[in-house]
């Protein structure tokens, strides 16, 4: 592991060793420095000032708007675009970590050609030979036009201009385009077509619902458009009488953790549950639909369903009666747990429920903007065809089937049979599929490239380059145009030479409008689609699951750490603990205590999970947050390629345990792969960020329970809680002349998605330490999501609490520092001066919240990652303490601006990175002295409390607002 994150031992450090004997050498840090001024003066780039570009995130299919901060021509931070209708300012961790894909040290930097060589032992080994673009493109072009050969283009989901260019490209070159994105909810689009008559993923409006029922859809984390949904959900969740939320899934997701009730069903039986609920609702349907639905559900027997789902039958009645009671609701299904063999049936039933309840058009809006093209059927057919030979060229872009499909599909073997044809990969990172290519054409990252996409709410989002390409890469769109033009198919691009021109032509707007849209990051407008519902008769012909076996099954799920595997090469995401399992730098298997007892496994032991398709050797996390008999494993870890940060996580790829899809399914069913579990011979360190999840009644993360009518639920059995009396103040309290910065954290809105943590890593140059150092408990994150669990089984309550420096007014850390390296400044910030710190670490000992981090080593950041570092924040050296500063660089920047304009800093002008990034706006920051500021208002709310303040009188500047949860 130390090959991954090197611990520095520079010459400077060596001087320091000498320094001990010769005393004064410590101050000798600067060396001769060279300044290289810009060659050209640029009108908008002033060295030292940031330039922001609006663009669109290219990390997943939700296409959030982003605004990218660049310094001296280099992207250093990605934030959500507040004007973008999809995410309205927040951005998930994946989107923010796009920088680490851009600056991935393992990025492919020039075109590569596969040659066969041998390693030092004489074994055959692939050697990648760098070639010129001309040579590489000539090779590809000649293979493309070889007559009489089959040609394939495997792509991910595309949108907007690229989609149309790609389709024209494959059409004119007589290629077959195969699309595969494992996360795309293709079954949802299909069911939408069946039930509503509109093919495409509907828009979901979680802010329009007083009741949320989700069958496995983790809409706060990875499902469809999580940032948008989280924001909508949170606007309502913050209310004093929030919408009730049921989550029906076998493994508690983050969304489930935020739900009022988690109903843990057996995997694959969600459709039965949904059907049972539908049965209770059929009478609400109109006269035409009702009999059909009754027919559809007539075989449902509630008790049988409850038994099959392994739940109490009352849950079905509760969910159904709540749906009947509530006027405005939303029912969704999906996510990995919802994608069983019967996933499509589930979606159809859910669509019917929404239809019956009148949600369609209000909280569920059928839409054809996002039309998934993913088809596993096409993929497997194409693989069969490739196996037959006679293939001229196979191209890949934006998809990694060699990782994201079970090995049973045999794509690796198929690609070996392409010879003498050519396998071409348009990829900027060596993933598992690219590793099989003959020619690799490295493409721009979306931050270096042009592009556009359609927004579900209407309008178009534009992607623009935020910096010059750092390596010899080319835009994928440009490459398509060059290749098409090179083989005399100029009609593909309509005569355009570059992809940018192509987009501009396709947008067909005036030059001034174009400029306006580029600046804004797209053209945003609300288009109301007229709604006509036509239900296909086939929708009533769905299959429901029969009896399930009792064997152990594996349940893969998408996680905020790795998504479907695309995020595995981000050091930040690997380092940040999974908010629920708390695992760092690893893959893991969640097992219920009862199952674990049967298998005699303990947390941290490495289990061998295998079936006839493959095996995993991953550590076990014993937790009640998963159904008995189910082994939940995150998707996306266990890469064999995909860069150093992905490869370091060993243990195998969970896709390899799954059996191929049956019955022409367009997606891969993820549940119900039977496995056997054993203790693995593999030995490895296992790191969890917490050693306990019990808050021992300390009232750190508070949850207020509500009765269904919204009043406070009082636990009469609980012991009375005696807060300490108001503490006397020994000293006169500090007066702040202008500002007293403070923050509030709404625990009801916090989903634990860890976007704030990523934002903090990116903004504050926090080093990634790697697994070995994390194993010693030496992570550096300034803000972390703490998880506390109370209750067991049905009563399980998970609290997720972002914990950062509380900037106490009576900070215990300050008076103990012998050198004033930490003190209280006049803005109420608990300041930390790195260069004054000698490293006694007393402050950390005395910190009640233990939020101070110490630089145990000089962490070596890979060179390319260094280009991301924020020049406004000092990189801390070895031996100094560091912690959250409320992003003082941003405060100073705002003050600087305010001073220029001769005014005070306005409310909302300063947002620390975490506050800015929060998709749910759970965090509020501002001046506590200003009684009208948002933070003053929210810290004065009834729910507000300060952690441990009644015990130790630290008087934090950070207030938390209690989480609330219905007692159902």
């Amino acid at each position, binding site marked *: 592991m130390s090959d991954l994150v090197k611990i520095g031992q520079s010459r400077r450090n060596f001087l320091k060793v000498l320094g001990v004997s010769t005393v004064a050498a410590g101050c000798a840090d600067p060396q001769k420095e060279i300044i290289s001024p810009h060659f050209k003066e640029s009108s908008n780039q002033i060295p030292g000032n940031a330039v922001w570009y609006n663009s669109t995130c290219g990390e997943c299919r939700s296409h959030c708007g982003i605004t990218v901060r660049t310094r001296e021509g280099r992207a250093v931070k990605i934030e959500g675009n507040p004007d973008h209708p999809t995410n309205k300012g927040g951005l998930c961790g994946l989107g923010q970590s796009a920088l680490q894909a851009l600056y991935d040290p393992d990025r492919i930097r020039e075109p590569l050609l596969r040659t066969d060589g041998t390693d030092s032992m004489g074994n055959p080994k692939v050697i990648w030979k760098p070639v010129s673009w001309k040579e590489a493109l000539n090779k590809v072009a000649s293979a493309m036009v070889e007559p009489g050969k089959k040609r394939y283009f495997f792509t991910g989901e595309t949108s907007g201009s690229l989609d149309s260019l790609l389709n024209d490209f494959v059409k004119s070159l007589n290629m077959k385009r195969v699309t595969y994105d494992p996360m795309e909810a293709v079954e949802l689009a299909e069911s939408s077509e069946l039930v509503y008559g509109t093919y495409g993923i509907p828009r979901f409006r979680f802010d329009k619902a007083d009741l949320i029922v989700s069958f496995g859809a983790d809409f706060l984390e990875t499902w469809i458009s999580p940032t948008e949904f989280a924001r909508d959900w949170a606007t309502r969740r913050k209310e004093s009488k929030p919408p009730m939320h049921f989550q029906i899934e076998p493994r508690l997701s983050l969304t489930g953790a935020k739900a009022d009730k988690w109903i843990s069903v057996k995997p694959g039986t969600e459709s039965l549950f949904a059907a049972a609920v539908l049965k209770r609702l059929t009478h609400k349907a109109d006269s035409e639909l009702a009999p059909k639905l009754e027919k559809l559900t007539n075989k449902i027997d509630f008790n049988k369903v409850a038994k099959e789902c392994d739940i109490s039958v009352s849950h079905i009645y509760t969910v159904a009666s709540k749906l009947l009671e509530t006027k405005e609701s939303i029912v969704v299904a999906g996510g990995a747990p919802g994608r069983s063999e019967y996933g499509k049936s589930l979606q159809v039933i859910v669509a019917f429920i929404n239809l019956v309840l009148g949600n369609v058009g209000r909280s569920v809006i059928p839409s054809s903007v996002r039309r998934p093209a993913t088809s596993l059927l096409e993929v497997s057919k194409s693989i069969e065809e490739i196996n037959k030979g006679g293939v001229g060229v196979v191209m890949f872009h934006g998809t990694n089937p060699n990782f994201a499909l079970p090995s049973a599909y045999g794509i690796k073997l198929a690609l070996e049979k392409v010879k003498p044809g050519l396998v071409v990969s348009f990829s900027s990172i060596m993933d598992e599929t690219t590793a099989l290519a003959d020619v690799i054409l490295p493409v721009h990252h979306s931050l270096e490239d042009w592009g556009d996409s359609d927004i579900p709410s209407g309008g178009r989002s534009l992607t623009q380059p935020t910096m010059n390409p750092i390596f010899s890469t080319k835009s994928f769109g440009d490459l398509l145009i060059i290749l098409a033009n090179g083989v005399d198919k100029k009609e593909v691009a309509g005569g355009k030479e570059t992809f940018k021109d192509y987009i501009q032509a396709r947008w067909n707007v005036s030059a001034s409008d174009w400029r306006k849209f580029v600046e804004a990051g797209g053209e945003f407008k609300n288009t109301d689609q007229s709604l006509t519902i036509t239900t296909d008769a086939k929708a009533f012909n769905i299959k429901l699951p029969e009896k399930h076996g009792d064997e152990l099954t594996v349940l893969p799920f998408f996680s905020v750490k790795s998504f479907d595997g695309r995020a595995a090469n981000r050091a930040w995401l690997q380092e940040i603990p999974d908010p629920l399992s708390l695992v760092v730098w690893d893959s893991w298997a969640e097992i219920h205590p009862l199952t674990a007892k049967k298998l005699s496994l303990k947390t941290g032991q490495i289990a061998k999970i295998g079936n006839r398709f493959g095996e995993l050797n991953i550590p076990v996390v014993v937790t009640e947050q998963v159904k008995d008999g189910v082994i939940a494993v995150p998707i996306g870890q266990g890469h064999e390629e995909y860069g150093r940060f992905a490869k370091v996580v060993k243990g195998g790829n969970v896709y390899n345990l799954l059996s191929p899809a049956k019955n022409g399914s367009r997606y891969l069913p993820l549940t119900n792969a039977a496995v056997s579990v054993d203790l693995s011979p593999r030995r490895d360190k296992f790191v969890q960020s917490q050693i306990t999840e019990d808050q021992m009644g300390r009232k750190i993360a508070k949850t207020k329970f509500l009765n269904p009518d919204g009043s406070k639920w009082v636990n009469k059995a609980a012991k009375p809680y005696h807060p300490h009396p108001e503490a006397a103040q020994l000293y006169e309290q500090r007066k702040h002349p202008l500002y007293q910065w403070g923050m509030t954290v709404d625990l009801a809105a916090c989903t634990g998605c860890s976007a704030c943590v990523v934002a903090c890593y990116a903004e504050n140059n926090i080093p990634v330490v790697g697994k070995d150092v994390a194993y010693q408990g*030496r992570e550096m994150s300034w803000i972390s999501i703490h998880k506390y669990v109370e209750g067991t089984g049905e009563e399980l309550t998970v609290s997720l609490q972002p914990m950062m420096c509380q900037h106490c007014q009576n900070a215990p850390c300050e*008076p103990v520092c*012998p050198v004033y390296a930490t003190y209280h400044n006049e803005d109420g910030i608990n300041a930390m001066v790195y260069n004054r710190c000698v490293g*006694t*670490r007393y402050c950390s000992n005395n910190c*009640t919240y233990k939020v101070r981090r*110490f630089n145990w*080593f000089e962490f070596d950041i890979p060179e390319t990652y260094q280009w991301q570092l924020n020049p406004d924040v000092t990189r801390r050296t070895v031996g100094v303490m560091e912690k959250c500063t409320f992003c003082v660089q941003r405060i100073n920047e705002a003050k600087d601006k305010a001073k220029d304009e001769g005014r005070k800093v306005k409310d909302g002008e300063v947002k620390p990175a975490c506050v800015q990034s929060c998709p749910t706006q759970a965090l509020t920051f501002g001046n506590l002295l200003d009684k009208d500021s948002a933070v003053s208002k929210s810290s004065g709310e009834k729910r507000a409390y300060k952690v441990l303040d009644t015990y*130790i009188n630290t008087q934090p500047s950070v207030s938390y607002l209690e989480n609330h949860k219905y007692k159902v």
Partner: protein
Amino acid sequence: MAEEKKVDYALVNRLVLKMLEPPTFGWYVLLGICLLSVGIGAFCWSRQILYGIGASGKSHPAMWGFYITTFVFWVGIAHSGTLISAVLYLYRAKFRMPIYRLAEAMTVFAVLTAGLFPVIHLGRPWFFYWLMPYPNQMALWPNFRSPLLWDVFAVSTYLTISATFFIVGLIPDIAVARDAAKTKFRKILYSICSLGWRGSYTQWKHYTSAYLLFAAFATPLVVSVHSVVSWDFAVSIVPGWHATIFPPYFVAGAIFSGVAMVITLIIPLRKVYGLEALVTEKHFDAMSKLILVTSGVVGYSYLTEFYSAWWSNNPFERYQFWFRPFGHYAWAFWIMFTCNVILPLLLWIKPLRTHIGFLFVLSIFINIGMWFERFNIILQSLSRDFLPAQWGGYNISWTDYGILFGSFGWFGMWMVIFIKFFPSVAITEIKEILPAPKRHGGGEDH
């Protein structure tokens, strides 16, 4: 003093100066072992400076560990030296005479060792001087509100005063050695070190007066230094540290460990150099009783901590004191409890109080126990404090062990050199308690 009847000035000189005879092979071996372990410690420290403090086992949240434990341990060891030399001097306790020089040497060298640890412990040891109040170009001063700065003042004062006390006490004895020196090297060495002491009566007059004043100054230091060290913990808010009992508890513990260390050192010395006439069973009996008393105080303090945690109804304190005997580091607690509270109870048996072999073994156990006492206080409290989500532990690394080992070598090195080159039993003061030789009516007890 029945058995000392035959002891006269000449015998004292002969016995003590015998220890200064040219080193034997055994002495070189001992010195070699010490130097080797100093080397190991130095290597570990260099490596730690090179890579960062992460080379040691400290972690989040246990940011203090072996080094501060060892620091407190050595400061504690230092205490009994001053107690024996200064406090007992003021009380005119005669049983201190044969052992006080060794105890004082132990004090100085233990403080010398302890003083290294705060620097070793620093994240950036090359800036250790920022803790000193000196005018600098940054126009910055240290923070006098920090207990660590109090430590700097307390320990540096302690080192200065105890070293002065020690050296002043040595001057007449070095003069004795000078006058008996056989080799030229030693002659020069002792001439320089004795600063030209002649023992003229005016000198003696000022000397006794100054010595008394030194003793008077060193006495409050005995109480204050370890109290200040204990404030490092007691002033903070960590559950398990934040207790008003800490100063007396630490001082008692310090004396306890110090007396044990004196026993550990004096028993082999007495054996090797045949000092049975000077260091008698009576002295061991007195020291055993001191151990018994301080062990009682320490044991009582342990129990008080538990009681006050329970009585306070403070969940953090309560959990901490449940965690100590039954938690993850329970082994450390039980080592401490056995060595410091249970084993010393055997000293109630009178024959054991003068049983040399038993005392030697017991004293080593007490030293181990006292090291673990500090380990318990520091590590256990830090690893389980307010937020359960931030709980953690300590990953003991070989750097930790290496530096701990090195500190014993460092201490031992000074002791070994001292014993061979300077009188490690106070010649003058033993002579002082002997009856002055008189032609008429001798035998008057001083």
